[in-house]
C-alpha cells in the first residue's frame, strides 16, 4: 500500500516539478509548484510526519505561494522582454551539469546496501515522533533557535516594509 502511494505521489511531485521548469508562463509555474508541494506533503504523511505535512500545506502551499501569486499578478510577467532569451547556451549548460550530477549519483546508488544502514528501532518511545515529542524537543533542546527564528521573521517583516515602501529614485 505504501509503495503504491509512494509512486503515485512521488510521480505527481516529479511531473509537477518538471512542469514548473518547462512552463513558459510563470503563473502556471506557480500553480504547478503548489501541486508539487501538496504531493510532497502527502509523502510527509507517508513518512509519519503529520505535523510537518500540515505545516507544509498551510505555510508553504498556503501562505508563501499566495504571496508569490500576488506578486505575479501585481507585476507583468508575460511581457516580451522577460521571455526573451539572451544567453542561448544556458539550457545546454544546464543539461550537461544535470547529466554530470546524475552520473555522480550512479556509483553511489550502486554501492548502496540497506543492511549497512538499518532503521533505528530504539528511539523516542519506540515509534515515530508524535506531536508531543516534537513540541518538547522544540521548546527545550531547540528553544534558542526557535526564539532566534522569531527575530529572523521580525527582521524580514521590517526589511520587506522598508524595501517596498521606498519610492523609485528619480
Amino acid at each position: 500500500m505504501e509503495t503504491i502511494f509512494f509512486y503515485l505521489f512521488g510521480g505527481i511531485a516529479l511531473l509537477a516539478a518538471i512542469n514548473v521548469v518547462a512552463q513558459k508562463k510563470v503563473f502556471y509555474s506557480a500553480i504547478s509548484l503548489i501541486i508539487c508541494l501538496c504531493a510532497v506533503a502527502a509523502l510527509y504523511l507517508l513518512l509519519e510526519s503529520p505535523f510537518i505535512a500540515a505545516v507544509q500545506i498551510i505555510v508553504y502551499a498556503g501562505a508563501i505561494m499566495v504571496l508569490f501569486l500576488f506578486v505575479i499578478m501585481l507585476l507583468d510577467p508575460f511581457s516580451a522582454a522577460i521571455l526573451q532569451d539572451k544567453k542561448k547556451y544556458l539550457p545546454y549548460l544546464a543539461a550537461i551539469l544535470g547529466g554530470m550530477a546524475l552520473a555522480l549519483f550512479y556509483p553511489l546508488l550502486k554501492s548502496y546496501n540497506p543492511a549497512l544502514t538499518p532503521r533505528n528501532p530504539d528511539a523516542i518511545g519506540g515509534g515515530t515522533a508524535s506531536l508531543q515529542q516534537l513540541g518538547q524537543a522544540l521548546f527545550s533542546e531547540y528553544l534558542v533557535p526557535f526564539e532566534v527564528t522569531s527575530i529572523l521573521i521580525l527582521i524580514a517583516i521590517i526589511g520587506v516594509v522598508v524595501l517596498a515602501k521606498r519610492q523609485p529614485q528619480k
Partner: protein
Amino acid sequence: MELIHYLILSMLLFLVGAVGFIIKKNIISVFLCLELMLNAVNLSFIAFSRHLNQVHGQIFVFFVMVVAAAEAAVGLAITIVLYRNRNTLNVDDADTMKW
C-alpha cells in the same frame, strides 16, 4: 518503502530545481525553482527523520520552512523594487553588480 527511494526522489526533485534555476529567465521563476530545491532537501530530512526515528529532522524542516518564508518575502520585495526601478523581470538585465 526504503530510505533510498525517498532519497532518489529528493535527488531528482533537487536536480529539476537546480536545472530550472540555471535556465530560467524570469526572476520569479528562479525563485520558484529555489523553493523546489528547498522542498527536495526537506523531503530527505523527513526521510532520515523516520529512518533514524528521531525528531531532529522534523525540527530542521520546521526551521527551513521559517527561513524559506522570510526569504520569499524579502526576495519578492526586492523583485518589486527591481521592477519599479528597471521595469524588467529578466535576471540577465539585473547585472550591475556583475562588473
